[in-house]
């Protein structure tokens, strides 16, 4: 179990390192304050949060996610209507304008981790690859905090 996960992680790192990828803009994205909550088993979806900062001069667009942790990661957005009813839906592509920051945070955008392959254990981390429209990709290690965590500080 553990070794196959490690192999997948290794494989996805290799993939990121492939020299064939030419990028325009996404190399300027900085990811900060990534965090997620521990899961109860693997039946419930997880969520991860972070801040994407575009330090470059071109807009960058996040188009998808990949992780060995979950078979169906996707970017979701939670909205709450005037009656106080909350709902969640795929957010589509996320554009980060040059010099600006987009936050994935509770109650708004989140990396929705559907079909967990392994339990999210407090104290561990998992790799999450962000795929951008220019073909670039960035893999971040997302710390797993407690189930009752409220932010990157716990």
């Amino acid at each position: 179990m553990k070794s196959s996960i490690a192999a997948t992680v290794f494989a996805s790192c290799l993939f990121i390192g492939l020299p064939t990828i030419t990028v325009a803009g996404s190399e300027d994205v900085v990811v900060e304050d990534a965090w997620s909550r521990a899961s109860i088993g693997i039946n419930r979806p997880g969520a991860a949060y972070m801040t994407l900062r575009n330090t470059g001069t071109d807009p960058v667009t996040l188009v998808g996610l990949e992780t060995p942790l979950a078979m169906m990661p996707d970017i979701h957005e939670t909205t709450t209507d005037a009656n106080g009813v909350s709902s969640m839906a795929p957010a589509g592509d996320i554009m980060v304008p040059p010099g600006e920051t987009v936050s994935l945070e509770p109650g708004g955008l989140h990396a929705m981790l559907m079909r967990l392959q392994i339990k999210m254990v407090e104290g561990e981390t998992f790799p999450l690859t962000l795929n951008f429209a220019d073909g670039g990709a960035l893999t971040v290690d997302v710390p797993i905090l407690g189930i009752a965590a409220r932010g990157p500080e716990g």
Partner: protein
Amino acid sequence: MNRSTLITYGAAASGVLALALFVGWWQVDGPGTPEPAAQRPLPLTQMKFQMTDQDGSTVGPTTLLGNPSIVFFGFTYCPDVCPTTLSDISGWLDDLGDDVADMNVVFITVDPKRDTVAAMAEYVSYFHPAIQGWSGTLSETTRAAAGFRASYEKVATEGGDYTMNHTASVFLFASEGQFLGTIDYHEPREFAVPKIRRVLTRA
């Protein structure tokens, strides 16, 4: 985009809710009253539903009488809003300290099919110890939501699974059961904690 798939109990929920709203309006405000308070939860004394708490005890709205209460709806397969609400509330309760010793804090699931008593018991154990987890049958869940004027709806997700849209507000009740107000999702702690304190000092 997800297409909302209103399943039977969602439809039943809105039917019962509509009926309850109509009856509530008829009885409380009467015909011709300019503003029927459609969104206001009933007093706990007028609600009727039966559920099971995390310890397996039978509970209902009258169980809450005698102490002030905080009640909110959600489901444990909710990755974003619900853990955030439970951890926010845990934070408020920590701030209030011993003052909340006698307060009822109840998380009611809108997804009893997956949220069994055991599932609710495990889930609430990760948050503030005052938080209870109640689950009921589909029809009792419908009755509970109708009393609180809360709504919920089952929605299919990409992987053939489903999620639940639901009212995310936190409801406050006096110890005699009157509805005192709501704390909206994501209301900052500076507002939430004093609101709860006001409810507590009323008691």
